[in-house]
């Protein structure tokens, strides 16, 4: 459906995007994950035709978009990071305006508006001026506008920034419904939980480069073979004379690190958790809390990029 082929972009001395390539299949949801300034928005802008790449190309069904009036542009719907709405107009008027620009006739427009408003649960506020909407409602309308022309690929650039949990949930339910209808999604975010919930595949971008590309399991394996078996331990006296080097020599322990005051073990199997806890007790430490489970995306990102996503 969408092929991003060796995209490269410089802004003066800054090499914003370096040889980025990935594919999005029909009905697939791909997350572009990376810290601020990683090159996600620049990549999205090149996919949307807003920025011309220095090198590489973007193909829709194997063909590049040529010129401003290329009808292939209609295959793509963009939800910009900024609220792209005319605040003085009502929700319905905004939809009508942007729908007309996409070339919809009156009947198509009416049908699309009704569907889009229902999807984002704004039908009852459609005639109110956008400036009277809450931040979350504006975000939902921002999504609705991109759906009017029934695009095959929806590109969403951090669509939930500053959104309340209720609106976020509405947006997610809408996106899941679109995915179920066979739409392809390209979703940029730095919220791990959003990427985990929505995306079939994740492309991690850091410093303009694709660091990793795969589904969650593939990324987890790429980050650490045993990260699916993680044990997190809280001690009564954190960091009190613990020898990490000693712990690393225990049977079944792949890695061990201090993360935010907690000991995080990656084990060959969670069956070994009891042995690890016993070792800690034998070393004279009191375990106040422990939890076992699969590694999350945040730790995978940390492992792959060497830094925490939220601290960038």
């Amino acid at each position: 459906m969408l092929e991003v082929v060796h995209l490269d972009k410089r802004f003066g001395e800054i090499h914003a995007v370096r040889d980025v390539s990935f594919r999005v299949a029909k009905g697939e949801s791909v997350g572009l994950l990376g810290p601020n300034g990683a090159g996600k928005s620049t990549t999205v802008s090149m996919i949307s035709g807003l920025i011309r790449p220095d090198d590489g190309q973007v193909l829709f069904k194997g063909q590049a978009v040529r010129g401003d009036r290329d009808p292939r542009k209609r295959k793509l719907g963009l939800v910009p990071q900024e609220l792209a709405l005319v605040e003085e107009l009502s929700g319905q008027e905004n939809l009508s305006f942007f729908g007309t620009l996409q070339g919809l006739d009156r009947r198509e427009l009416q049908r699309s508006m009704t569907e889009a408003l229902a999807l984002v649960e704004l039908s009852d506020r459609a005639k109110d001026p956008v400036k009277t909407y809450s931040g979350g409602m504006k975000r939902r309308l921002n999504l609705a506008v991109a759906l009017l022309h029934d695009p095959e690929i929806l590109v969403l650039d951090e669509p939930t920034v500053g959104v309340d949990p209720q609106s976020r949930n509405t947006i997610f339910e809408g996106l899941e419904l679109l995915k179920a209808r066979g739409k392809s999604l390209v979703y940029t975010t730095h919220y791990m939980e959003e990427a985990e919930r929505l995306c079939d595949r994740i492309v991690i971008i850091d410093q303009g480069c694709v660091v990793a590309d795969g589904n969650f399991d593939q990324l987890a394996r790429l980050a650490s073979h045993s990260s699916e078996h993680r044990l997190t331990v809280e001690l009564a006296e954190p960091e009190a004379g613990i020898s990490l080097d000693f712990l690393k020599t225990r049977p079944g322990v792949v890695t061990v690190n201090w993360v935010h005051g907690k000991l995080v073990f990656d084990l060959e199997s969670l069956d070994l958790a009891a042995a690890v806890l016993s070792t800690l007790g034998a070393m004279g430490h009191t375990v106040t809390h422990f939890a076992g489970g699969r590694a999350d995306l945040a730790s995978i990102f940390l492992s792959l990029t060497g830094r925490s996503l939220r601290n960038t």
Partner: protein
Amino acid sequence: MKTSQLRPLVALVMKDLQVFMTDRYGLLLSYVAPICLASFMAVIFGGSGSSPQNAIQVKLVDEDGSVNSAEILARASSDPSLAVESLERKAATAAVREGKAALAVIIPAGFGNAADNAISGEGPPPELLVVHDPNHSSELSLVRGVLSQVIMETVAADLFPGSQADPALLGDELLLETRSKSQDDVGTGVNRLNLAGSGSAQSRAVERDAAVQRATASDAASPVQLRPTVSLPYVCRYESITGGGSTGERHALAAHAFASMVVQFVLFLAVEWGIGLLNERNGGIWKRLRTAPISRFTLLLSKAISCAITSLSIIAVVLTFGSFVFGYTLPGSGLTVLLMAVAFAAMASTFGLLVAAVGRSAQGARSVSILAVLVMVLLGGGWIPSFLFPQWLQKITPVIPTHWAIDGFDAVISRGFTLQEIAPTLMVLAGFSLAFGLLGSLASRWSAES
């Protein structure tokens, strides 16, 4: 005030000052703009002391063909205050109507002989026809004074051919009565110039008054005893290009004021339109527009058309209000006014596009553009008559679009220009529109890279 209260006060003041100092466009408007404008005005009105004097454009029609009328023409031409050109009546009147001259003076056939007869009491004073533009009333007063002197000098020299008296003094003496009669008008003219700060024209008027004073003081010593009952050997008949007498003149002045302000405020609107486009470009709406299957030309044209429609409505409302309240009516065709309004609206809207294209931020673009509009309207003659400008400045004002816009509105509202007459102005405004539109289109940053 206690220290505990003073510290937050100082902190609040310091914060405001810091914010102000970091706003470079605010600084530009607050410090640089007044310095630039004041310096500019100072240069215009001779503050630099090096500007040449402005001669007032006068067309003289000699239908008399007598020695006297030739002498009047020669003396008037030698006066540094006037730039006199001798023309046929039709051409001279057309020049005034087209704004190329402040007034035309027509010396009718038989004027010289009749003036000689009149001064010796042997006949009625002949009539001198003055065709003038009400928008140049200040110049009219000055020229009337100069002409009176010139004619009196001519007649006095003719009357006393063997006299050793200075013809200028004789003329000045005879002029006293003229002065007393037209004092109000002349005074008004000089006062206007005082307000406008025209050093050169004002100083000439003062010199002339001083000469009249000298003539009065030397009355007893004068070799010629003048009768105090002597009167002017001619009368003036004033004819305004607008018609309708003094009411017509008032209407013309009101129309000029409305034309100037409509030009200024439509340009302000265009600036705001450009800022709106700039804001769109820097925000998400532009991204959405650019991803839609519509051309760049359509995008820009839509902005220009919407701005032009709003501009047209402003022009219509403001000029209609002026017409109702101040009574001016259209002397010519409504079509010429409509075409002029459309041409100016197109120029203003493309100016807005240019503002959007070259502006980086809304705040910066607004500051610089408003300053530019103010200067353009000033140079276009919107605030003060452009004849007060130094000659070098008057030569460059045709490259300023507001000059054409204000003159064009004056032409169709006050002077009743025909379509043929206004066509050059329309063409020039169309040229400016094309240039602004082209520059705006080429300079537009279409991608989101900025």
